[in-house]
């Protein structure tokens, strides 16, 4: 499938990049990062025009993020009705909202560029835990600009070694995303342990 998609960059140009970045932001399994690196290389060889490609990638990605966020926001309204009847779960949601309120902005930014495989899930979480839309939009646009320019730029710079740079970069991006998830789960485990130690020492 990847070969077909890469051939489509030559055949369709900007349009296919818009579609692919849009779908990738909704967690569809399309190789958006690889296609942006390739598009960057094709800009270097004068096969594609840089401004058109930047606009296509950026608008596809931001639009995809907004759709994910809006869907989750819809879900949140349904969730609120359900939680009002279950106080224990509602307490958990209050915690999640506080977390989003504190870390939401930078979280959205870094999940666009540094750990982009996590982006679609952050959109859903941000929408469902009530991050304000203007805040989401601003961080989203800043993050996607970084993502798009980083990948197109590296594709452009390393155009004659496209396979090498994509091999290394895509693995590195997977490594960072997996590392962030591992650290997050590790922290949750530590917290669970501390909680149980606390419970054990508490007088009954």
């Amino acid at each position, binding site marked *: 499938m990847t070969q077909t998609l*890469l051939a489509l960059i*030559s055949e369709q140009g900007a349009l296919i990049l818009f579609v692919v970045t849009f779908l990738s932001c909704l967690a569809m399994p399309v190789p958006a990062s690889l296609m942006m690196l390739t598009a960057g290389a094709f800009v270097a*060889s004068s*096969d594609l025009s840089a401004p058109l490609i930047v606009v296509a990638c950026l608008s596809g990605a931001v639009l995809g993020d907004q759709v994910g966020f809006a869907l989750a926001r819809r879900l949140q309204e349904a969730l609120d009705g359900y939680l009002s009847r279950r106080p224990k779960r509602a307490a958990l949601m209050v915690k999640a909202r506080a977390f989003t309120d504190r870390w939401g902005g930078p979280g959205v930014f870094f999940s666009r560029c540094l750990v982009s495989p996590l982006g679609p899930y952050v959109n859903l979480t941000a929408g469902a835990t009530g991050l304000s839309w203007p805040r989401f939009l601003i961080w989203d646009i800043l993050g996607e600009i970084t993502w798009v320019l980083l990948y197109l730029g590296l594709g452009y710079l390393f*155009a004659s*070694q496209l*396979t090498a740079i994509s091999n*290394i970069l895509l693995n590195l991006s997977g490594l960072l995303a*997996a590392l962030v998830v591992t650290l997050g789960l590790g922290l949750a485990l530590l917290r669970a342990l501390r909680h149980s130690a606390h419970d054990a020492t508490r007088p009954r």
Partner: protein
Amino acid sequence: MRTSIAHLWRHHKLLLLAFVVAALVTLAFAVRTIMFALYWSDPAHRRQQLEAWMPLRYVAYSWQLDPARIAAAFGVKDQQGRRLTVGQIAARKDLTLEQMKQQLEALAPPSGGNE
């Protein structure tokens, strides 16, 4: 340590399993990244391989050839932004990708053209 793990296994089984899986995935990515970095650090591997999806101009660019000369050799007009891929030209000329590659290589300087 052991009792901690036993405790987590009893009370937070899913969380612990998720952590182990995530740690293994991280390790796999780390190993792959190192292997790729080692492979690509060898200059002999760095020359871009020919693929059917590549536009002819891009092949010329990555092999440091004159795009107009390459285009002329395959009987296509060289125009910026007009992207004929190696695959399309091969199909038009009734060539296999391997034959295309040989013809292109005949036009390219010997090994390491982009070093």
